[in-house]
């Protein structure tokens, strides 16, 4: 088990390496640069800035410089926010993004799994229809639409919550719900499908026929077995949530790092873009390992060696 884990974790390194090479190449292959403005900087000033930031070097030299900094934990200077280091920008915003992601994840799990269970237990009856409708709407509604609806109803109309910002619990509610909407629906659908499949298994029939209470059958036999496929999607879902959402952070004016996924591309803030990509790649790779470990815990048949 330990050696398996160690091997899996070590595999993250080549994954990150490949992601970094591809991203680095692609972002420099796109025309334009960090100094682009509608009012163009004088060519001389651009040349000076390029020299200062090493952008006049061949691409492979720039990459080696970047890797050199990265392995020492230095993510470089921001091209856009010229007084600041990328380390500080990420450190400032990641806590907020992480907190929002965890809150949304908890909400998604707490609502999504019971919703799926209820639907499966009431298969083809009103609870199922209700739950399925909710999850279909949830999947079909983009997060920005949900976010806007929440703002219009709960901020502009009812004035219950502020329209944005990140200053205490009252500002957390709407973005958390908006971010949780989609994962709630996905988790509910997976849970329902998986529950329905489990319901037809022989061991469930056995448990029922030997006279076990329905509650015990559901909790001990059905849910536990049904959760294995659900756990599979929880990993990537968590990775997606804790690394932040560009749209939600933008609509609610949240000072996290999620908004930099897109803004660092459009402003050609190369070092920030690399940092964001590596962060996301690491989160996905690492949480996939965590999910695999969780399998072994939930399903005793799964053993790693």
């Amino acid at each position: 088990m330990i050696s398996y884990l160690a091997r899996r974790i070590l595999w993250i390194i080549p994954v990150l390496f490949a992601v970094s090479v591809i991203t680095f190449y692609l972002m420099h292959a796109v025309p334009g640069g960090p100094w682009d403005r509608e009012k163009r900087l004088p060519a001389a000033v651009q040349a000076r800035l390029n020299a200062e930031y090493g952008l006049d070097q061949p691409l492979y030299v720039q990459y080696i410089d970047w890797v050199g900094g990265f392995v020492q934990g230095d993510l470089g200077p921001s091209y856009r926010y010229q007084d600041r280091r990328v380390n500080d920008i990420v450190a400032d915003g990641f806590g907020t993004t992480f907190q929002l992601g965890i809150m949304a994840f908890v909400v998604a799990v707490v609502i999504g799994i019971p919703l799926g269970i209820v639907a499966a237990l009431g298969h083809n009856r009103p609870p199922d229809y209700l739950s399925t409708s909710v999850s279909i709407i949830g999947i079909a509604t983009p997060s920005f639409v949900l976010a806007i609806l929440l703002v219009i109803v709960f901020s502009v109309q009812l004035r219950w919550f502020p329209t944005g910002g990140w200053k205490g619990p009252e500002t957390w509610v709407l973005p958390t719900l908006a971010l949780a909407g989609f994962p709630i629906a996905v988790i509910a659908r997976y849970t329902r499908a998986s529950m329905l499949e489990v319901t037809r298994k022989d061991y469930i029939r056995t448990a029922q026929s030997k006279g076990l209470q329905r509650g015990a059958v559901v909790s001990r036999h059905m849910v536990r077995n049904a959760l294995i496929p659900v756990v599979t999607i929880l990993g990537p879902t968590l990775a997606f949530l804790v690394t932040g959402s560009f749209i939600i952070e933008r609509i609610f004016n949240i000072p996290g790092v999620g908004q930099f996924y897109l803004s660092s591309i459009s402003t050609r803030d190369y070092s920030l873009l690399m940092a964001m990509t590596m962060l996301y790649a690491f989160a996905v790779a690492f949480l996939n390992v965590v999910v695999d470990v969780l399998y072994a815990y939930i399903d005793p048949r799964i053993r790693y060696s």
Partner: protein
Amino acid sequence: MQKRFIGIFASLAIIVAACGGATTTSAPPASGPATSGPSATGDMSASPSGDASVPPASGALAAEQILNIDISGEPPTLDPNAAQDSNSLTVLRALHRPLVYIDKDLEIVPALAESWEVSDDAKTFTFKLRDAKYSNGDPIVAADLVYSWKRLIDPRTAAPYSYVMEEVAGGPELLDMAGAEPAASDADIVAALDAFSVEAPDEKTFVVTLATPATYFLSAMTLWVGVPIQEKWITSEGATEAANYVSSGPFMLDTWEHNSEIILTPNPNWYGDVKPTLTEIHMSMSPEPAQAMAAYETGEIDMIMPVPGEDVERVKGDDVLKAEYSEQTSLGITYYNYNNGEGVARCADAKACPTTNKNFRIALTQAIDKKSFQDTTFAGLGVIANSFVMPGIPGAIPDYDPYPFDLAAAKDSMDKALGELGYASAAEIPTLKFGYNSGSGHEPRVAFLAQAWEEAFGLKTEQIGSDFSVFLTQRTAGDYDLARNGWGADYPHANNQLGGLFTCGGGNNDQQYCNEAFDDLLTQAAAEADQAAQAALYEEAGKILADDAASLFLRWSVTPQLIKPYVSGLTPTPMDSQIPGEHFYETIQILEH
């Protein structure tokens, strides 16, 4: 409810769907998104106006003097020498004041300098400084100006606005050094800086010698870049963080929570005659205009400028909001480039590049109903433009219109052009490339123009929406035949309007235009010390541009804004870009509400 619902929804949906082009440029209408527009007024102060020296006190003041505003994003820097983006400038204008400043009518007035003398040859300016202190209590001395100006033009600083020092003796040499190959040595730079003609004979006297007689020098001095800067401050670690920041203006930096909020408080050492009434200014940083709009409607922020274009109609029809709505003339222009072909390899053969033909450009211009364009795509906001320089700036020719909308005349011009180019009909012309930056609300405008040309001549265009940087790169390279463009004034002087934008090989000359007669006039104007004579030269130059149909000038900006009724004492100017009255925060007051 329903109206509001749809309005907010539409604005958010449009913007989110288009999150791509979120790039801020300096000055307001330059990136000219769905925001700035003119109305039928040429009035320079169309909104609640105040006076910089006498703040009006109408109604009782509120006990809590806190102003809440949004600056639409994290300022890239608060180093005055290095700043260029409008979110930075909106903050810097509260934190610093230069030697001379503008008043509400854009006249140049004393600020840190209480007076100045100009030598007989109009080359040497001697400024007398006021008794003034920084927020840290240190006196503001002339040596700090010398340091700041040298730092601004020092090639090692690579400051975007270093060019404003080009009139100072020794300035051009330093500007040339910035891009020198191989890079200039430190010793050379230091020597050049020593020759750069700014001096501080004593603590209160600052002397500048210009290379040529002054023309737009004082105008450029009103910018945020030439403010006094203490060397010991700006060279310290984390100088621009709130804990270390040293300001010289009416306010100081109390808090800078990055990406979240800036809080300004009054600078107790502020030397100006008008002391701030506000005790705090809270600046949020919402990158999403629709979020700011919602925040305004719920009262979280007190002003919004510009009102998102999608919301203007709704606001004007809303019983509450329409009373808070006003329009501010801004020094900006919306125009579209014709590729004039100068220096573009693929345009060596005019047939491949029809926009290089003057009659072709005239035909395209005559085929556009600008009023209809503005009504359809700018909510009717704006002043129709047929030339470049904005009304209100000396040298403007707002009434000059050589090629008014006239489809019959357009067809005649097109026939001439087709003959010269060697085409039998406009439909034979290969599809023209029409570039714009996507996701900033330009789509309907590009479509309007493309459709008008297709209907008038059967001309085919390919509309190419790109990421902002890609678009700029290709526009500069002359890859497009037609391209979106916009400009906002840095300072109210025709030189800032025409120089560099239309001169042969000019730094921002993305229409690849070149006319030596125009360049000659600009050179003459720059050397002309007499204001009236200078304005006449700029007028003449402007007419050449219009006659050549160098670009498709469409509208001068008018910016829609919302101001809560309890915000009083605003001093708006046509230079405001994000906050009504952003040049004079010290006059703002909050009334009881």
